């Protein structure tokens, strides 16, 4: 299972296990959209168990963040390792997302 969905208070947390790539991005998208349709508005995507994100994976995060914002919510990113953080910085997506060092930090104030 690549994506584990859990709740922390009123925040939906999605753990990405392994990779977020062109081959599984639709699965993540559908899980988040299902939660959004169910009324959830606060999301944290936790990458502490993630080895690799490709451009399609980055793209789906951008797309989901936009949809969530349109519904008055927020999507935060947590626990990027050094390589993944570099990908966000290279693509300047670190300016688009709130990126927290840990899940707890991401949950704070959300």
């Amino acid at each position, binding site marked *: 299972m690549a994506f584990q969905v859990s709740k922390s208070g009123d925040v939906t947390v999605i753990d990405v296990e392994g990779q977020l790539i*062109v081959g599984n991005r639709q699965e993540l998208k559908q899980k988040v959209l299902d939660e959004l349709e169910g009324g959830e508005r606060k999301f944290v995507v936790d990458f502490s168990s993630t080895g*690799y994100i490709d451009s*399609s994976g980055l793209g789906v995060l*951008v797309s989901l963040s936009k949809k969530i914002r349109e519904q008055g919510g927020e999507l935060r990113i947590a626990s990027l390792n050094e*390589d993944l953080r570099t990908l966000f910085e290279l*693509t*300047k997506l670190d300016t688009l997302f709130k990126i927290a060092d840990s899940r707890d930090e991401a949950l704070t104030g959300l």
Partner: protein
Amino acid sequence: MDQELILELPNDIHSIEHAVEYVMEHCSGCCAYARKLNLNFRVGLSEALSNAMLYGNNRDPGKRVRVEVTVREEQVTARVTDQGSGFDHTLVPDPTLPGNRSKPGGRGIFLMKSLMDEVQFNEEGNSVTLILRLEEGSPDLAGGASA
């Protein structure tokens, strides 16, 4: 340590992960450059395969993608060729510009160019050659960034 690999892949995005892992296993002799290979080369090759399947071959399941990899002591080279009619990579806008950052797509070629030492397209635009140098002092991921 010279090695050459040739793969013919179905035009199926689910084959990318396995193909990249297979290629990476054949680069394991270059362990001194593990980070460059595991990130720069992995990302570059994955993006080239995605572009070939999604845009070059336009998701056509009847088409194929050819991958030719050469692993040498001083560099790793991968040529990815699709069966599409090609495109002009210079027309892809810079995804890091403020007006483009919130667009869901357009980061694949940028990542390839940022993470590889050289990226060459053929004239037709349906084949890309990625070169990653494995030399002392050659840039790692952060140093190779051209954003």
